[in-house]
């Protein structure tokens, strides 16, 4: 019976050792180091738990900011419509000098919106022979600075650190207009819903181009009576105002899209971290139970070996 017990425990030990196959990437641990693999799993669990907390907090912050940003953005959409009605939305007029203005965020971890804007800016810049770029936002600068540095006129960063008002947007518009391009194409993400953002290209021309378009009948400016200065000065004022309004709307739409995209990506990160934490917990429990069982069996087999000797 004692020898039977010994045979039984050794068989049990053998089957246990053979069946202790886990799906986790735990590399070979020599016997006597069972507690170390437990520690490794514990460390991983702790770091994944921290990641989950951080991403959940970032999602909460983005969600709390989203409502305010969305309200301001919707109010800024009103002023864009009369100017489109008056000055038209004609991205196709060919001009000598074109400036592309990609609008992006300063901070990262906001999903794919900045890459989308950069992709579209590259394509738009490739449509005309002579283009320059004024980059708004740190993320687009990082992506566009390497390949297209000959095209980049300047960069405007850290706009997220000051409150976004029409005055700030006018300053940005002034900086862009000061370069003197005939056509400006502003590429940004338009906010449609918390999970959907549409890459949009808005076009603003210089006042000379608007005059030519009015004479050619592409915009209906000449059909209107004018109360104010004469046509070229009027169109100059309108073009500058249009640029300010378009920049204000583009900056607000892009920052709202950034918040929505960040919410989404942090939500996904939290979910993934939670899943990973679940798997690691199972692994941890299995490893712990296996090590306890192994020790027990060794004790029992040792004891029955001693009894058998007697």
């Amino acid at each position: 019976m004692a020898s039977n017990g010994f045979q039984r425990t050794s068989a049990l030990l053998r089957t246990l050792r053979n069946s202790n196959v886990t799906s986790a990437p735990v590399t070979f641990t020599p016997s006597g180091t069972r507690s170390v693999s437990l520690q490794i799993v514990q460390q991983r669990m702790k770091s994944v738990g921290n990641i989950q907390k951080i991403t959940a907090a970032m999602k909460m912050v983005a969600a709390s900011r989203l409502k305010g940003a969305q309200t301001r953005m919707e109010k800024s959409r009103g002023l864009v419509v009369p100017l489109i009605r008056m000055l038209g939305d004609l991205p196709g007029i060919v001009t000598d000098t074109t400036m592309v203005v990609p609008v992006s965020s300063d901070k990262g971890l906001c999903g794919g919106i900045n890459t989308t804007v950069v992709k579209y800016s590259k394509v738009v810049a490739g449509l005309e022979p002579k283009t320059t770029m004024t980059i708004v936002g740190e993320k687009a600068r990082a992506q566009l600075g390497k390949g297209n540095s000959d095209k980049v006129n300047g960069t405007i960063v850290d706009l997220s650190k000051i409150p976004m008002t029409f005055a700030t947007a006018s300053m940005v518009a002034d900086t862009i207009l000061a370069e003197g391009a005939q056509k400006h194409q502003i590429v940004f993400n338009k906010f449609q819903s918390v999970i959907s953002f549409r890459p949009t290209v808005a076009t603003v021309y210089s006042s000379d181009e608007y005059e030519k378009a009015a004479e050619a009948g592409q915009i209906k400016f000449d059909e209107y009576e004018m109360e104010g200065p004469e046509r070229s000065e009027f169109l100059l004022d309108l073009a500058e105002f249009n640029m300010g309004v378009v920049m204000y709307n583009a900056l607000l739409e892009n920052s709202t899209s950034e918040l929505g995209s960040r919410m989404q990506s942090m939500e996904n990160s939290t979910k993934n971290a939670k899943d990973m934490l679940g798997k690691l917990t199972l692994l941890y429990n299995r490893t712990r139970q296996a090590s306890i069982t192994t020790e027990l069996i060794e004790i029992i087999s040792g004891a029955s070996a001693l009894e058998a000797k007697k």
Partner: protein
Amino acid sequence: SWTRPPRARRNAPRRDEEPSWLRFEGRRGPNGGRAREAVKPSTMDNPSTPSAFMKPLPEVPATPPAKLTLNFYVPHNIEFDGAEVDQVQVPATSGDMGVLPGHVPTVVQMRPGVVAVTLNDKEVQKYFVSSGFAFVHADSTTDICAVEAVPVEQLDAEAVKKGLADYQAKLVNAKDDYEKASAQIGIEVCGAMNSALGN
């Protein structure tokens, strides 16, 4: 017995099934072999343009409608959006202008002054605008685009008088054209606010 054909690499298109746009054009690459420099169709959608998100414009009616459709926008707010009003008075640079339904299409540049909206026979809402543009369209839609607009009731008479005095002092002490111009603008706006309050 049946033998399985050799398993192809997963992503490699088979020769006879290659799509025609991927066929090379016979150009020699740098290694002397035939280079595959074909153009693949793009996977990117076309970007939108802002006019795609606009509501479609109404048709121009044959006879002037009974009421004016007013859109009054400032960058940070929408004061009126498609509101039906009787009349609007607009402070143009060439003088005050009244807009009624059926007004000839006009573009107006506004000076600092009061926009008076007559909602119906009794109610008149007055807004002080800092300047901007107004567009009267053929279908009796009026778009007023101002940089800043406040209801006249919210203007503080004391602060306006103080501001006027400040800017007049700044004009006297102005060193260069920029300071002179900004002081003159301040005097014009404060003066207009003063007259809006009835002084």
